[in-house]
């Protein structure tokens, strides 16, 4: 039998598997508790997951490129604080959002520049970023939450379009853009190539510098977008928002089948991974399961997903 064909299948297989796990989860929760599948709960679930969901999209690209971004939570907080400060000072909402997004891009770009030019491992650079950007957010606000955002902005957290929460729609849009970028753009192709073999990519004439800059800038951008959603949800800019998100996002990405060594993975997988984690905590909460137990279950699931992957690969090769 042909190993290659099977392996390729396993990659797709993983997305299918993880999707099935999600469906099974949803079905079992809805059987166990009829409140779970209510329109209200599902839309609520989508809304509360949207912020980490957006962060995970940028993270997926970075991990596919063979890197990692530990600074996402801090960039999220910084951007959310910047947006809030601007709005409170009377800057138009739209302009505040744009500036906040740009600040996220710049934060990511800066890390990308250091990673590429100084050849410092992404883990180290973004670990420093985690510290630095959180610190800046704290300094900007005196460690206090910024309140008094314009109502028009804060309302976004509760706005619904065709019954769907606005925040979830933003997330779904970003997923679609992410899928398009990963599958249909030169940027996407190059990111996979770099993650699979950076030296081969370089010798093939791919501009590694541009790709690395862009992928970290993209990570900053999605973190900033998540920060704006966060500001709307909290009705303010909190400098402590998003702490620990880096690990949640990495968990979702890995659960979704993206390889931590780069080159393999996809956005849909991450979407399913994010949803599984959210579904377990949401469904578990409804059923009154101790949230600490839920955390243990999620941890086990992550390991199982990767082990299952390895077993399948080994069995067939």
């Amino acid at each position, binding site marked *: 039998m*042909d190993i290659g064909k099977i392996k390729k299948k396993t990659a797709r297989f993983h997305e299918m598997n993880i999707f099935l796990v999600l469906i099974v989860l949803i079905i079992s929760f809805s059987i166990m508790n009829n409140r779970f599948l209510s329109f209200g709960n599902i839309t609520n679930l989508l809304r509360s997951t949207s912020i980490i969901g957006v962060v995970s999209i940028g993270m997926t690209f970075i991990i596919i490129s063979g890197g990692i971004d530990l600074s996402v939570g801090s960039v999220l907080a910084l951007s959310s604080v910047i947006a809030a400060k601007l709005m409170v000072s009377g800057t138009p909402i739209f302009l505040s959002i744009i500036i906040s997004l740009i600040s996220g891009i710049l934060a990511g770009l800066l890390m990308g520049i250091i990673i590429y030019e100084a050849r410092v491992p992404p883990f180290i650079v973004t670990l420093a970023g985690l510290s630095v950007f959180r610190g800046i957010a704290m300094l900007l606000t005196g460690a206090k939450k910024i309140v008094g955002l314009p109502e028009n902005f804060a309302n976004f957290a509760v706005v619904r379009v065709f019954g769907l929460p606005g925040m979830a729609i933003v997330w779904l849009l970003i997923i679609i853009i992410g899928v398009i970028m990963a599958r249909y753009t030169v940027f996407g192709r190059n990111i996979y190539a770099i993650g699979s073999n950076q030296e081969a990519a370089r010798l093939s004439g791919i501009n590694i510098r541009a790709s690395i800059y862009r992928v970290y800038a993209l990570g900053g951008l999605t973190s900033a977008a998540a920060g704006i959603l966060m500001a709307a949800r909290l009705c303010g800019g909190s400098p402590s928002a998003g702490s620990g998100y880096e690990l949640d996002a990495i968990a979702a990405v890995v659960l979704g089948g993206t390889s931590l060594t780069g080159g393999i993975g996809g956005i849909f997988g991450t979407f399913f991974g994010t949803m599984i984690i959210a579904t377990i905590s949401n469904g578990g909460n409804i059923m009154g399961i101790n949230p600490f137990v839920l955390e243990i279950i999620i941890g086990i699931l992550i390991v199982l997903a990767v082990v299952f992957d390895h077993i399948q690969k080994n069995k067939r090769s």
Partner: protein
Amino acid sequence: MVLENKEIIRMEGIYKQFPGVLALENVDFQVHKGQIHGIVGENGAGKSTLIKILTGALQPTSGDIFVDSKKIIISNPIVARNIQIGAVYQDLTIAKDLTVAENFFLGQIPRNRFGFIDWKKMIQKTVEVLRELNIEVDPNMILEKLTAAQKEMVLIAKQYFKQYRVIIFDEPTALLTSKDTEELFRIIKKLKKEGVGIIYISHRIEEVFEICDTVTVLRDGKKIACIPINETDIDGLISRMVGRNIDDMYSITHQHSKNEILRVENLSKTGVFNNINFTVNHGGVFGLFGLVNSGTTKIARAIYGSEKFDQGNIYIDSKKVRISSPSIAVDNGLGFLPEDKKTEGLAVKLSVKHNINLSSYSNISRMGFVNGKLENKNAQQLIKSLRIRTPSAEQIVLNLSGGNQQKVVLAKWLVNQCKIFIFEEPTAGIDVGSKEEIYKILELLIKKGSAIVMISSYLPELMGLADQITVVYEGKQMGTLSRNEFDEKRLLQLASGVL
């Protein structure tokens, strides 16, 4: 004689089936005490598969292995180590950041009566072993800091120290200078005297004649012969290896254009290469020949922008170009085929299609969006024209054979319509059949007016393909010979620094 030199290992009727390929077919092989048994064969003949089975890295599909006439199953490398079979090519038990002495005692560090490490004993014993083998290395040296040759010697010494009964040498001289090679042979002969059974694999046939007692010839997974070395000669061995006339293998139709496509002037990099000059015409195949570390690879990479140089100029189609990175090189119509395909030429986790288009995405896209139809078309076309054997364009490259992988690398540059192909060891690690196919492709390329710069340390191939060869020794250009002046002896002399 036979009674004296007791058999250590016997492999009987070994078969190894890989998906789609029968890598070994009914192969017998044995090693005696104090015997140096050579294995020769073209790439893909099954040499490494046989060795991997012996070292426990692979399991045979069928067949038996006997150690001291007792049947044994070498289910993993640890079993191999326990029955004292060692291989020099890649010792997993070597730690690069530790010293020579520490490596010798890895896993069994001697302790003094206080339970602390007995450094004195370690150093003493290490010095003893090194002296016994006449290896001049400081036992306190960190392995990483040794030269390739020294590392190899240390590796051998370690296996000797561990009293391995069989030591496998897989292309041991690939990274060695001729002086180091002499040194290596001295040590191997010493091991032989001590009764170690030695398996010696090399592409360099002359070496096999110099050192081996017996030689086994493999071809296409079958054992063709197992003969005492003094009953054959180089021609006899080669004709057994290839099973065809070697003269046919390296012949291509040469082109005779007078228009230059690439000119390199005064290319220099302090301490690496100095004042390199050459011109390649449309349709030309230009050979860069040098022994390992002569600087040929660095020169090629400097032209391609992947290695910096201090001074000199490069002209393409008589226009001066500044190539400071591979991506600029690609824009100028250059393509680079590195020797190590897996680490430098291919993104092995990705599909054949993705790899074929790897350097062309900017040409088959609009506003950053890839034209999927063109991408597919490119892939299909090249799979067909280069006869890349793959079930589909979606196949992961990792699972192709070496020859097909090399074709994928070639395909990448064909799609990109590059004009100058820089080819490092074009047929290293690929089988005879694919070799010929690749030569045919080269022939086609030069016919279309492309030029090829070929870096090879394998003279017969280079002499067969190139229409000019420049020889580099320690970064110096020793001379350039055109086709009618080619002479193996002369080229080797130049490459060894003899003017």
